[in-house]
């Protein structure tokens, strides 16, 4: 096993609203080794994106703030870095791509200029070298005729093309970690598959570790090694991708899996998880999933379960607590 690249321990990020601290991410821990892929899964509002922005130290402040925990990247705590050190890490060691490729590129510059700007900023390349490297990157993300494409403006490219450019830009400095925040959500299915294929290939070629944030379990099955399921700011299940799909433990995880429509087999009614994600300050005691859980019982109402070790998974549910005797 390779060394630990990123270790997030007990991360707590809150947003202040009307003097009240609302936890968006509450005590989340996970680790990532070199070249590994971690999928972070959850519904909208579960704290996936806030987790990734916390790692980048880009939580808008005010109103947001990382109030606890540590984020060790190659053994150094990112939360203790100065702003200018952090700027050197962003784009160079840790990079990120977003959900919306249509607006993620600056409309007034050619894509070649945008890719080479990052290279010139972080790697001290000359303009010529940076442009050559930009062409090379575009080739890597399978953009045809890269010499011509670099002279084009974003509005001349399709959504899939732009997302490729974003990936090229994010990976141009060969970062050790790429955070992909719903990289395929805004694209149609065939392009989604291509983009995932590219991320997968580049990961193997460059050894970049990837954190993939998504609500699409199909995407996770495709490329993740481990999966962290988040609900309402909490990690509810953390396990290998095999375990998640073949042996889901948390009622929320199985709920998510059941709510994927099946094409093959007899037609069944789609099983949705009842209700909606409560806002983080709505549930102050007990399990956060209690309002939507099929297995809810008395203990869930008052006490929040800790992350329990069940087999090779970590699960936050009282059901795995041998007759309710354990105390976290």
């Amino acid at each position: 096993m390779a060394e630990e690249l990123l270790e997030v321990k007990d991360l707590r990020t809150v947003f202040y609203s009307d003097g009240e601290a609302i936890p968006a991410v509450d005590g989340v821990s996970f680790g990532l080794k070199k070249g590994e892929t971690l999928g972070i899964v959850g519904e909208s509002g579960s704290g996936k994106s806030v987790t990734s922005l916390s790692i980048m130290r880009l939580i808008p402040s005010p109103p947001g703030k990382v109030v606890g925990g540590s984020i060790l990247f190659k053994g150094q705590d990112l939360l203790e870095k100065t702003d200018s050190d952090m700027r050197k890490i962003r784009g160079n060691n840790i990079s990120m791509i977003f959900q919306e490729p249509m607006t993620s590129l600056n409309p007034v510059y050619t894509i070649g200029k945008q890719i080479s700007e990052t290279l010139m900023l972080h790697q001290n390349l000359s303009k010529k070298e940076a442009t050559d490297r930009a062409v090379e990157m575009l080739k890597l993300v399978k953009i045809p005729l890269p010499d011509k494409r670099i002279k084009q403006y974003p509005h001349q490219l399709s959504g899939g093309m732009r997302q490729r450019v974003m990936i090229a830009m994010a990976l141009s400095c060969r970062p050790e970690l790429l955070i992909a925040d719903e990289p395929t959500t805004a694209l149609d299915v065939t392009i989604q598959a291509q983009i995932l294929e590219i991320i997968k290939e580049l990961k193997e070629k460059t050894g970049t570790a990837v954190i993939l944030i998504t609500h699409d379990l199909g995407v996770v099955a495709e490329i993740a090694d481990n999966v962290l399921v988040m609900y309402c700011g909490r990690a509810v299940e953390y396990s290998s991708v095999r375990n998640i799909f073949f042996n889901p433990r948390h009622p929320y995880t199985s709920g998510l899996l059941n709510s994927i429509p099946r094409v093959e087999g007899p037609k069944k009614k789609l099983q949705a998880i009842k209700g909606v994600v409560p806002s983080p300050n709505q549930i102050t005691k007990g399990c956060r999933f209690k309002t939507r859980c099929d297995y809810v019982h008395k203990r869930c109402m008052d006490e929040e379960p800790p992350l329990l070790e069940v087999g090779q998974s970590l699960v936050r549910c009282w059901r795995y607590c041998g007759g309710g005797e354990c105390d976290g």
Partner: protein
Amino acid sequence: MADNNYLIDIQDKPSSSFSDFRKRLLRSKGAVFGASIIILLIVCAILAPLIAPYGYDEMNLPEGLQAPSQKHLFGTDELGRDIFSRVVFGSRISLQIATIAVGVSLIIGLVLGALAGYYGGIVDFGICALTDTAWAFPMTLLAIAFIAALGPGLVNVMIAVALVSWAGYARLVRGQFLSLREQEFVEAARVLGMSDMRIIFRHILPNSLAPIIVLTTLEVPKAIIVESSLSFLGLGAQPPTPSWGSIISSGRSFIDTAPWISFFPGLMIMLVVLGFNLFGDALRDALDPRLKD
């Protein structure tokens, strides 16, 4: 994956948006008229010594107060100075005001507006309070107050004009930044490790240039009017410097016997202001993507 051929639609010309823009601009008669006046003004200012038949302070008392004729195209004033020559040299003053004062106010407004819009919060609050205060005063009145403090003179007029007209830019730029800073490409720039200053000036500002250019063309005539007003009141250019405002003012006592003294510089002010306004309006239409057809 050999499936990328579906997207080979590459044009060899990277973008034809500028020629589109030029075509749209030139389609407007107002723009052509306005641009001609502006170009004429610039040519006059640069080539003043060649165009003017006499020096701007060349006195010739026997030929005082002559009506326009072939010898004196716009007539002469009470000291026999050629009004045409004075008006031609006066264009230099107007153009100086237009470039320097408007340039300085543009820079002040741009920086303050950018900081307010980008950082928001307390920075925004402070800058907005300042901007609104400056905005609340009538331009000319505030300029007179500045001149009263600084003393009359052309340089002080420029300072005064710059100090009274930056608020419009600050508001405009702030508004642009407020909407642009939420765009994902700004977030992307941050993620790629760019500093705030780089994001402000290299990524957001170029995206808000169009309305700034339009406002600038509309601010130039205002600056010219304020300068002329101040010179008319004797607070700006001092004699014998031929500012259009001061020429009008000097013709005031002869308005019934020699109206041409005041008429021609007044006509020039009107034409130049009209030219800039027409050009600015057409520019706004040409740059507005919603009006593209």
